[in-house]
């Protein structure tokens, strides 16, 4: 895991966001298994357990609260027995687990400097600790921008909430174009603001070593679509 190129891990994170937003239960579970086994193999087992434990705790608490809230707001415990509600909670938990796991993989196995270096390739001014904080915050901005773009394009008739799974995947992928444009604009603004505030006055930094993309990265990236689409196809064939 540590040897994987940061870009590969970013790809995993992006893939899991896509999978979480559009895929049916089978792919969800398949992808979850994939990420989980990757990280179980690639990290110290204790660390993996720790991540899993904290993720599971948060999710369990969330699920319990959702159930409790459902009961309290309807004043009838029978709602738990209603299949659709409980099923929603379970699917939601699986999605969350997957997202948390892939983010955890990115942030816990990549040295902050690697992430900083990636950002500086995108011409983000350095002052890394600061940038790193910004970058992590940036993730949540990206997520909400993505939601906003998704909603606006759906209401403009882009078929991302209906139609076949394949079409949905394709259309959802196309949303990354405006997301990237919007975020580059935002990064631009941010860097101008930082510059005005006096960041980046020190001279450009060079790095001691740079990660290379190797065979393992390619294998992992190639596996992603297989894992996502494979079980779906298999299931359709069985039917």
């Amino acid at each position, binding site marked *: 895991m540590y040897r994987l190129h940061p870009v590969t891990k970013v790809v995993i994170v992006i893939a899991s966001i896509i999978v979480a937003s559009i895929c049916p239960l089978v792919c969800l579970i398949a992808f979850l298994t994939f990420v989980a086994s990757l990280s179980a193999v690639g990290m110290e087992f204790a660390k993996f357990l720790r991540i899993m434990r904290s993720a599971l705790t948060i999710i369990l608490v969330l699920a319990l609260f959702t159930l409790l809230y459902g009961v309290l707001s309807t004043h009838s415990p029978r709602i738990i027995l209603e299949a659709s509600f409980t099923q929603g909670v379970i699917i939601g938990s699986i999605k969350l687990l997957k997202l948390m796991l892939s983010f955890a993989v990115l942030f816990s196995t990549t040295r902050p400097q690697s992430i900083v270096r990636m950002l500086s390739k995108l011409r983000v001014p350095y002052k890394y600790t600061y940038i790193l904080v910004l970058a992590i915050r940036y993730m949540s901005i990206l997520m909400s921008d993505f939601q906003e773009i998704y909603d606006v394009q759906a209401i*403009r008739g882009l*078929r991302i*909430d*209906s139609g076949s799974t394949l079409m949905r995947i394709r259309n959802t992928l196309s949303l990354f174009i*405006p997301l990237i444009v919007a975020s580059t604009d935002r990064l631009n603004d941010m860097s101008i603001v930082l510059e005005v505030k006096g960041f980046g006055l020190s001279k450009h930094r060079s790095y001691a070593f740079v990660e290379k993309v190797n065979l393992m990265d390619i294998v992992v990236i190639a596996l992603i679509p297989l894992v996502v689409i494979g079980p779906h196809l298999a299931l359709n064939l069985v039917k």
Partner: protein
Amino acid sequence: MPRDLCRAGDAIVFNDVSFSYSNGFALSDLSFTIRSGELALIMGPNGSGKTTVLKLMAGILKPSSGDVYLCGINTKRVKLSEVAKYVGYVPQNPWMAFFNNTVFNEIAYVARNIGLSKEEYEARVLEVSTWLNIAHLLQRSPHSLSEGEARRVSIAAAVTHDPSIVLLDEPTAGLDYLNKVDYVNIVQKAVLRRGRTVVMSSHDIDLLTLFPEAKVILLNNGRLSFNGYIRDLLSRAHLLLSNKLLPPAAIALSTYLNELLGIGAEGREPSVEELIERTVLRKDVIGELICS
């Protein structure tokens, strides 16, 4: 679903609608109706929930309790890509909507998605872009536009397919007064059509004087604090102030002058002679006011 749906009756109905975000902000028990063909302004200070209300109207957000009916259909039961056929949505940030390589494609996008023929949408794009003064931009990339241009393009993109409901989020943000007046002309030409329902959100109180016929829904901190017509609102300037909105300058001045001259204090209109007498009496104050 036929596109002429919703050209009569109630276009948008909020029925005891509540909604809350995870961070604690909540809309509570909103009930109001916007009839088809009406122009409605959703007014309120920053963070009062205007965008949230528009998203609930469009079906982007679903209420946590209560129901929203769009053209008589409960938004809980519609897919967003279906809503596209009869709703045009202009987001607060126009850049969020841009998706295509040229302005032309951007404006034609919804019409294409819902299956209008090539002749039909090409004619519509030309018509709409002439109304909005953006015909010279059609071959540009939407990401190279200035903010004002981008705003007009995103309005054009929302009306090309001739939807029966148009929702605009903060359309006058960042415009100065003259541009606002200009904007009003544009809206009158391109957006307000017979039978079409238009909802605009804004914290810009000048819109009240620019669209004097509109229905007003005043929000404060997620609650409905006024629901009615402008003529009933302007006579109650205190309602605006208590909702952290300043009354339009013209109204404020006339209220001030009325008080200064004691008009309305006796419960009747003063005669012309009385007015002249009082004006002369207070001419020092009025002179100062005009000079400043």
